[in-house]
Structures are given as structure tokens and as C-alpha cells.
């Protein structure tokens, strides 16, 4: 049966969630046309995969191009779910949100589409932020809560101006163009995803362990790969009790255990990416958008 290429989206985004009834609807909304600047509904496909939630299902907004799938007894790592999403994605450019609790800033899709035109094999990354006053792993010490987070979002009238997320968030990096170990909103061309074979399911622990840093490294090692950073965009983590983001002790244990496993698998330490790459700013891709 011939593929109807006429109706193919320009970009697909694969979003993975687990017990994120509160957080996922915001993330999905933030990726939709309308919130995303300069994007028509037909440009975009969102493939949302619930990785076996045990709590109440998320009530998702009605959005053109949204496909929501509930996986039945999937492996605990999101790698399997991501790869299922990649198989279904029809866009030539595909983004992956390994953590469905991350709200996007409004120019990510336009920026990724622009970046995709700059190179044969772009590795397009976005900086990671945490909503609130500090890293959510330290939220107990800072008395940060979901209720406070909800108030912060109300305080900036989100989602009316998504760029105000920067006013209520803290960067996970020293700077958007600085060293980083992973990107939680990463876009590659479909051919690159195919060449990589998606995420490595050897990272089989809940949360995926170092699957995401590993993916970034392997992508940058592809022939002709060029790093492009959307330095004025971001993904903003909502607190939700994730594997690596709940307590300081949990974060340290995650980093130690995952780092040791990564070294055993890859024969080199997990480390930050230090190359700067091409830095794209909003003026590069939003200037023509009214």
C-alpha cells in the first residue's frame, strides 16, 4: 500500500510518560501548534506513549495530530517506549521527550525545523531547566511542592507567554552553551534515528538510567553529525517524583550506579559534551513569525 506522503507532518515528537496525570497535559499542550510559534497543525505529529502507568490516566487536551498510546506491561525503562514511538513517527525530523514532565518553550519546534535545514545530520538540542527555586532533587530542603509549582505557573499566566517559564525556573546547566550531559528535548532526522537503532535497551532500569546521555553521545559520533543548540529555548521540568529528580540521595545514587553501568557498557566514562556547536537564537528562526 503506498504511503500518503502528502499528509506527512514535517516533524514528529515522541513523548514518554509514567504516572504523570498532572504533568503530561501541560507538556502535550506546550508541544502543540498554536503554543508553538509559527507551526501549523499539519506540520506536527505528537506521539504520546504511556509507559505502563499504575495511577490515574492523564486527561489530555484535544489536539490535532496527537496520538496517545497506552503500552501494556512494557519494560520499566523508557527506551522500549521511545523506540516504539520512533517506529510510528512519520516526520522527517523527530524529537524525543524521554520525560513527559518537561514543558517546552514556544520556539522549540520552529527552531528545530530551522536547524534541520542547516546540516545533513544535525543533532538538535535544547537546554534543561527545572521549574522552581532549585533542583527538584533538593526540593525537600527547599520545601518545594507541586502546589507551589502550580502557583508559579499561574503567576506567569502560563501558557499565555511560554517564554515567561524562564522567569520561574533554574537552569540545570552552567549556561545554555556550556557543557551538558543530556538534552531532554532532542531532535534528529529520521535517518539518524534509524542509523542509531533508537535508544539502547541495555539501559533497562526505570527512568532509563544513562540511556539519554548515551543517545546524545552516539548521535554526536555519527558520521557528519553537527551539534546545533537552541540556546534560547528550553524544556522545563515539573516535579513529579521521577527516578533521578526526587531527592539528593536518589540523584547521587542514580549518577553513581548509572555512571558505572555506562562505563561497563561503553568502555569510557559518562561525561559532559564540551563542544559548543552551532548556537541558534530566536532571531534566527522566529524573526519572520508575526
Amino acid at each position: 500500500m503506498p504511503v500518503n506522503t502528502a499528509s506527512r507532518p514535517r516533524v514528529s515528537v515522541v513523548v514518554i510518560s509514567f504516572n504523570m496525570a498532572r504533568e503530561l497535559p501541560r507538556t502535550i499542550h506546550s508541544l502543540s501548534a498554536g503554543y508553538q510559534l509559527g507551526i501549523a497543525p499539519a506540520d506536527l505529529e505528537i506521539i504520546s506513549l504511556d509507559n505502563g502507568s499504575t495511577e490515574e490516566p492523564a486527561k489530555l487536551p484535544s489536539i490535532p495530530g496527537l496520538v496517545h498510546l497506552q503500552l501494556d506491561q512494557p519494560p520499566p525503562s523508557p527506551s522500549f517506549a521511545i523506540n516504539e514511538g520512533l517506529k510510528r513517527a512519520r516526520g522527517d525530523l523527530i524529537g524525543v521527550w524521554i520525560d513527559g514532565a518537561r514543558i517546552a518553550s514556544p520556539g522549540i519546534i520552529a527552531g528545530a525545523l530551522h536547524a534541520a535545514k542547516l546540516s545533513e545530520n544535525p543533532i538538535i538540542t535544547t537546554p534543561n531547566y527545572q521549574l522552581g527555586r532549585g533542583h527538584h532533587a533538593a526540593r525537600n530542603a527547599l520545601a518545594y511542592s507541586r502546589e507551589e509549582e502550580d502557583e508559579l505557573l499561574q503567576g506567569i499566566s502560563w501558557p499565555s507567554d511560554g517564554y515567561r517559564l524562564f522567569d520561574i525556573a533554574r537552569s540545570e546547566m552552567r549556561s545554555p552553551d556550556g557543557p551538558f550531559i543530556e538534552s531532554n528535548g532532542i531532535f534528529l532526522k529520521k535517518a539518524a534515528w534509524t542509523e542509531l537503532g533508537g535508544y539502547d535497551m541495555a539501559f533497562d532500569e526505570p527512568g532509563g538510567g544513562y540511556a539519554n546521555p548515551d543517545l546524545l553521545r552516539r548521535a554526536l559520533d555519527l558520521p557528519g553529525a553537527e551539534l546545533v543548540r537552541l540556546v534560547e529555548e528550553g524544556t522545563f521540568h515539573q516535579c513529579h517524583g521521577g527516578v533521578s529528580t526526587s531527592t539528593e540521595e536518589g540523584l547521587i545514587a542514580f549518577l553513581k550506579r548509572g555512571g558505572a553501568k555506562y562505563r561497563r557498557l561503553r568502555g569510557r566514562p559518562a561525561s559532559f559534551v564540551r563542544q559548543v556547536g552551532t548556537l541558534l537564537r530566536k532571531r534566527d528562526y522566529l524573526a519572520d513569525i508575526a
Partner: protein
Amino acid sequence: MGYSQAEIEDWIKKYIQSVLETNSTALPVDCEWTDLGVDSVELVIMAGVIEDDFDIAVDPHLLVDYPTIRDFSRHLATMLNRRT
């Protein structure tokens, strides 16, 4: 099995060279981690790899208390040799 401070220093230097993706043999052992360009997250990861390789628990806060390759190597060698 015991380890000398020099052996530990050599292990850490090779590890840091790999993290920084440099072949420079001139990695100063008296420079603080941050001045070497190593991020605190990478230090926590290194603590996990040390645990894996040397079969010893390493509190990453020790890397704050002993902030150079030389200082930390000396302390780790003492820890390792104390248990033998």
C-alpha cells in the same frame, strides 16, 4: 590488595583525561577539580566508577573535602589500604 598513592593518581588522571577527551599527560595533580574543567556531576559519576573498580564505598562529598587529584588519591589509597 594494597594500592600506592601513585597508582591511584594514575587511575584518576587517566579517568579525567578520558572525561575531558584530552591526551595531555600534563594534567596537574594539585589543581582543583573545577580548575581542571571537571563538573561536579562528573565527579559523582567518577565516585560510582571508583566503587565499581575498587569495590569500596565512596561518598562523593569526599571529592569536595579532597579537591585535587593528589589530595583525593592520598585519601583513597589510605581508605583502600586500611581495609586490607
